[in-house]
């Protein structure tokens, strides 16, 4: 049967071979979750990603180099994600960067990208300790990770109460996805608990979280003052419906940025009014310049990847922002390694490590009012720790807070300590300053 395999593989490679004449393209693979347990949430991300890449081509490409997106369906399963990675990493001249949109796949790929020399952008998810570029050379949690989310959501709650000292003695329940994704939030909550003396009630929800009655009965019994949610997919809307059913006020519920988007709330509608979620800088941005441009130039030309109604929604924007960061990193790499020709993954990595997006630059790209400046460095692969909170008013989101900045004084030591543990376990050495120049 091994021969059968090889024969099949030979046939397939022949069938799937790209055209012989290869244009210069910058290849951006897209690992999608269009089917499976998180399809309603992951589909807008993939659509936003593809649409922005099309917009970049319409705008003239990256100094003339066109972008090429190829999708591969992972259905949020780690082994399929690994197979897609293996399949796409060498195509079209080599993948520039991967954005797996899954913490599980990120963990699996972290091991492989170092050997394959392809960077990984994990904006808002993945390993929080990968912000430490000294240990994680190839991981880039650009513009935020889970500890930023946790810190800013707690800051928002504290502000609403009138200050951190007012939280002493209060009870905060954490409803989280029982997996590495959910558990990544806990260290920052624990750190803040030690500092400010509030009680924490941990309520893990086993995936996929379709039955949460017992969780919310416990919430009703314990009467926490606030509920923080780190959930994803159907777990969020189920949680909200159970909260409605047990009468827990939605104004006291705060989600992280994977737990507060339209697919989660549309279904619950008016009953979810008052629910807030902290957003990784951007929220739903229907009025932003980039959305208007996409609607005009991409959807207007019939090239839109998904439905028009989706453009500007929270998860769509996350895909757009992810694509923008990917492209700007490649552009920055071109500045160093040669404008007008495609950069390799290794060169793009340098670009992501030296990303300097000023407010003027972001505005010119169409992200005025959406993003704040991003500036990464050799040892800081996050580049920006801003967030803001939006609230669901029954039909759409409205901003409920000013810009919040995660407290790097607390987070940086945590990141470093965790990265050191990883390095010790894997017997890696911290990168020296000289390594930063490559």
């Amino acid at each position, binding site marked *: 049967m091994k021969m059968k395999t090889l024969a099949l593989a030979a046939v397939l490679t022949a069938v799937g071979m790209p055209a012989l004449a290869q244009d210069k393209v910058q290849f951006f693979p897209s690992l999608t979750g*269009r*089917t*499976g*347990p998180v*399809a*309603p949430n992951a*589909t807008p991300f993939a659509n936003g990603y593809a649409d922005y890449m099309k917009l970049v081509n319409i705008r003239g490409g990256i100094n003339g180099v066109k972008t090429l997106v190829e999708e591969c369906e992972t259905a949020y399963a780690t082994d399929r994600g690994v197979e897609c990675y293996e399949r796409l990493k060498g195509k079209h001249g080599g993948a520039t960067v991967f954005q797996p949109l899954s913490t599980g796949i990120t963990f699996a790929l972290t091991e492989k990208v170092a050997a394959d020399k392809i960077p990984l952008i994990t904006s808002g998810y993945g390993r929080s300790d990968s912000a430490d570029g000294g240990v994680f050379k190839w991981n880039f949690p650009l513009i935020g990770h889970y500890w930023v989310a946790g810190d800013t959501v707690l800051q928002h709650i504290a502000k609403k109460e009138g200050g951190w000292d007012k939280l002493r003695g209060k009870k905060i329940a954490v409803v989280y996805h*029982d997996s590495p994704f959910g558990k990544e939030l806990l260290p920052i909550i624990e750190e803040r608990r030690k500092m400010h003396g509030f009680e924490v009630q*941990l*309520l*893990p*929800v*086993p995936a*996929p979280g*379709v*039955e949460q*009655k*017992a*969780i919310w*009965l*416990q919430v*009703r*019994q314990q009467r926490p003052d606030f509920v923080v949610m780190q959930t994803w*997919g*159907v777990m969020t*809307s*189920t949680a909200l*419906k159970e909260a*409605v*059913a*047990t*009468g827990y006020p939605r104004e006291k519920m705060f989600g992280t940025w994977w737990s507060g988007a339209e*697919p989660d709330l*549309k*279904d619950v509608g008016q*009953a979810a009014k008052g629910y807030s979620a902290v957003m990784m800088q951007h929220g739903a941005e229907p009025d932003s310049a980039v959305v208007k441009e996409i609607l005009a130039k991409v959807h207007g030309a019939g090239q839109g990847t998904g439905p028009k109604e989706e453009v500007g929604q929270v998860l769509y924007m996350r895909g757009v922002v992810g694509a923008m960061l990917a492209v700007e990193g490649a552009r920055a790499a071109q500045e160093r390694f040669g404008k007008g020709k495609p950069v390799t993954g290794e060169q793009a990595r340098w670009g992501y490590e030296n990303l300097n997006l000023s407010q003027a630059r972001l505005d010119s790209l169409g992200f005025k009012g959406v993003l704040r400046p991003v500036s990464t460095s050799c040892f800081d692969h996050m580049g920006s720790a801003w967030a803001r909170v939006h609230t669901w008013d029954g039909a759409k989101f409205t901003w409920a807070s000013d810009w919040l900045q995660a407290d790097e004084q607390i987070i940086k030591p945590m990141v470093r300590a965790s990265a050191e543990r990883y390095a010790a376990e894997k017997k890696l050495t911290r990168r020296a300053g000289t390594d930063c120049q490559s």
Partner: protein
Amino acid sequence: MGFFIEATIGGLMAGMLYSLIALGFVLIFKASGVFNFAQGAMVLFAALAMARFSEWFPALLGTESKVLGNVLAFAGAMVLMVVVAWLIEKLVLSKLVNQEGITLLMATLGITYFLDGFGQTIFGSEIYKIDVGLPNEPLFLLEQMFEGGVLVNKQDLYAAVIAAALVISLALFFQYTSTGRALRAVADDHQAAQSIGIPLNRIWVIVWSVAGFVALVAGVIWGSKLGVQFSLSLVALKALPVVILGGLTSVPGAIIGGLIIGVGEKLSEVYLGPIIGGGIEIWFGYVLVLLVLLVRPQGLFGEKIIDRV
């Protein structure tokens, strides 16, 4: 004390919801000896049909009435489930007559994959809404006796009543109608039933259609609770311990098993969970079933397994 009652009532109602799904398993096993792995996919397929038809039919007909829309959608989904049952019988079951149980189990697995893919192809893979008017506000009882009252979820209450009605009507159907008798005869012995003239193919289509009806009702209720999307097929995993606890061949067993598992799960999560870290709901039902099976290997109400040597 009030909280204990609340948790118990919540558990009983969750259990009724599980039994709704378990009923489908039991029906098919009872009548054809096949463990229908595809029940979860059937629930999802039926719910998707209902959700999408309730969008499409009113638009096609130009009516605004929600009730009419829902009724038409339900009827449409039912017709679709009968067609699916007929196709399954014709293409799969009739070709695998007399095969071992495990082969048939595997065939239902193939049907699961097929229905999953097919359902999402025609109906789409986003979250869809089913709104049959089940209210979702909490109901607080006995507020004088217990502080804060005892919480009863109205939606679950309606669902429990519907489930009970369904079970009673199914029990009556099996007991008092000629088709029901024919179904029981086929369950007892295929060959004997065939020899007295009961048409096996028709019986199997009827059984799978009834199971499809049960799947539709379960899909509507669970779909209004959770929204209709892929994870709905995973509720079947929560119903498996119910099926086994009650015994694979017993309709009342499905209900009683459901109630026991529901209460057991909720009480264990609420009282035992915080001690060992939470999230135990997912295995508690199965461990409970394991312990019961050690004492009664055929489940609470199942037929005793007789091994003839």
